[in-house]
């Protein structure tokens, strides 16, 4: 039972007093949880905004330059898609039509606004698994699929029910899962042909849908979307944007960051969590440093350098952050599942978010350690003799 050659003073100091250690870890766990909750909510809310985007079965997306977000589109001429189809690498183009319409709750007779998404039901436009069984049914007149994640105020909807949409009777032929966002509390899917019937104002004089809300450019396998994007932009007029999915994602995020306080609120929340974490860790480390001041001064008198003592305190900080982070991560997983069930928001613990919170946790412990260590550096070993 010989101790290791090199004594880990940091570890032994930190773990010596078990009760203090438990309290310290609990403090860090709280900090970690607080930051995970803020980051979780922030992304859960934003992820909801990106759900439709993620379902688009496409390499490039065409939008009107006046469209600022997918939840509020301005239609652009369908010809732009035909023009884009001429570019090599583009194998198919698909129009997606979006409208909002009045929906009457079949049970309560109350009306609400619902989003209508329309496209060619036989084409691959949205990656929605439930679509496969209903492609034929959607080709019939006045049929639609209903999003089961729509808010309950739309009523309990089952396949076969007849409901009222935009003052027309609509038959629900199936259900699917998409989710809500800040603008729309519910969604129905229908064919482009039915869309023309429900929204005649979108038809041209010839009775065709000439203006598209979201255009999809489906690309040949293995081509670089960026190269195709460049080629398309050279031939289409400047009234449309051609975006990769990543660009669109960034654009949507930027829109919601700018137009809602969500980004600010939860970023601030994370920052507050960080600051509280610094204070908790500082308190823990400072207490430890002060308790060991005569010992640290003795080490200095023995010839230990300030650098060694700083390393000890920072190691303690690092260990503390690690010891707090792991249980915090475990608890977060549980809480995310609970919160996702309660709110219907997609809470997901991605590697990136885990990494972010880990980085913040280590950073806050380091900041606390650096503040606390000043006391050690300023300790005069001559004082021990006094």
């Amino acid at each position, binding site marked *: 039972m010989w101790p290791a050659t090199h*004594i880990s003073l940091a570890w032994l100091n930190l773990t010596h007093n078990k009760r203090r250690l438990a309290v310290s870890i609990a403090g860090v766990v709280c900090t970690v949880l607080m930051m995970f909750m803020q980051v979780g909510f922030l992304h859960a809310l934003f992820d909801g905004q990106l759900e439709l985007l993620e379902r688009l079965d496409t390499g490039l997306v065409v939008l009107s330059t006046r469209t600022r977000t997918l939840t509020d589109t301005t239609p652009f001429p369908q010809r732009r898609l035909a023009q884009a189809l001429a570019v090599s690498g583009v194998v198919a183009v698909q129009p997606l039509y979006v409208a909002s319409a009045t929906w009457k709750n079949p049970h309560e007779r109350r009306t609400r606004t619902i989003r209508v998404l329309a496209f060619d039901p036989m084409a691959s436009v949205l990656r929605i698994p439930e679509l496969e069984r209903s492609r034929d049914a959607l080709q019939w007149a006045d049929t639609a699929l209903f999003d089961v994640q729509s808010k309950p105020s739309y009523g309990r909807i089952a396949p076969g029910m007849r409901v009222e949409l935009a003052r027309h009777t609509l038959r629900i032929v199936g259900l699917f899962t998409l989710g809500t966002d800040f603008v729309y509390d519910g969604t129905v899917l229908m064919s482009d042909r039915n869309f023309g019937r429900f929204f005649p104002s979108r038809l041209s004089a010839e009775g065709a849908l000439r203006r598209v809300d979201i255009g999809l450019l489906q690309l040949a396998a293995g081509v670089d979307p960026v190269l195709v994007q460049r080629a398309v932009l050279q031939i289409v007029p400047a009234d449309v944007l051609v975006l990769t999915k990543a660009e669109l994602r960034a654009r949507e995020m930027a829109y919601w960051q700018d137009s809602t306080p969500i980004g600010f609120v939860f970023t601030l929340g994370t920052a507050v969590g960080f600051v509280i974490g610094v204070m908790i860790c500082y308190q823990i480390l400072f207490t430890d440093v002060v308790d060991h001041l005569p010992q640290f001064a003795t080490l200095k008198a*023995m*010839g230990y350098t300030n650098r060694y003592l700083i390393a000890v305190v920072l190691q303690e900080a690092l260990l503390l952050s690690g010891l707090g982070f792991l249980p915090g991560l475990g608890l977060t997983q549980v809480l995310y599942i609970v919160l996702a069930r309660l709110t219907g928001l997609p809470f997901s613990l991605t590697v990136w978010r885990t990494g972010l919170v880990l980085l913040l946790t280590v950073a806050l412990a380091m900041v606390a350690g650096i503040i606390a260590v000043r006391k050690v550096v300023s300790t005069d070993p001559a004082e021990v*003799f006094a």
Partner: protein
Amino acid sequence: MSDEPVIRIRQVQHAFGTGEAQKQVLYDVDLEVMPGEIVIMTGPSGSGKTTLLTLVGALRTVQAGSLQVLGHELAGLSHKQLVAIRRNIGFIFQAHNLFDSLTAYQNVKMAMELHDCDAHEARARVTAILTTLGLAHRMHAKPHALSGGQRQRVAVARALVHRPKLVLADEPTAALDKDAGREVVTVLQQLAVEERAAIMLVTHDNRILDIADRIVNMVDGRIISDVVVQESVAMCAFLAKCPVFAQLTPTTLSAIVDKMTKERHTAGTALIRQGEVGDKFYLIRRGQCEVSIADGASQRVVNTLAEGDFFGEMALLTGTPRSATVVTTDETEVYTLGKEDFAAAVAASASFKEQLLKVFFQRQ
């Protein structure tokens, strides 16, 4: 025994604070400590002895004067260089300052980690020193499980495990009972003897004064006495053996010894000459002298003096010129007492003069 001193202090001054609030705490301090010497520093609190100790320990920057420790001049060294010097010194504090989180073994090991030493050797040394200090069975206990004496012994082990050639201790026994204190000083003594380490000890604990080779007394930032204990004891014994001083108390004797100055002379040196005015009293510490009286043109040797003998007192007492010439016949060490101090010593004892007169009478 012809080593360089471990500590050589020359004209060291030290002050705390600056400007108006500046307070000088050390004045013109000179001190040398040789290998194997145990020096006890005494003096009232605030006398500057702890400041001196921290200066020697490279824990403070030398402000004025020269301070050589283990062959390095500390004046003008950078902080980094001072830190490097500290590694060769063993420090023992009044408080043990052990890490609660480390076992006795680990606490001692901390001192070894600063030295390039292979793991096996380091382990062996830590184990050996703890065993020497009677802690073999408590090696893996943490400080809270140890008694006060055991803790202080662990601190001593930590200070000594790297075999420093200089140990600085501040009240190392203050927190200990008599037996525990004795254990600690015994170990220090062994180190001084076996490793020829110099030990500088600040203490008010008079139970441990007996281990001192020298006792340095400081008052108000100055060294007011620096007594080589054995020498002082030997000198007192010499003085006390003489009928003249027999009546004096040890305190008075040692006060006289304190005032005496040591002189070394080669063979053939005339210490006093017949007919000169007397200015000093002499006591021979080592060596031999011949006493001769002018007999016409030639010198007649009347007596031979050796260790413990004294002379030169008559001229001081009677005010007459020297009655004989004393020449060393060997390498000789003498202690001398100046005229005024001699007169003061005589005045201290009424019987002293009578005794001396009796001695003179017998000599004639």
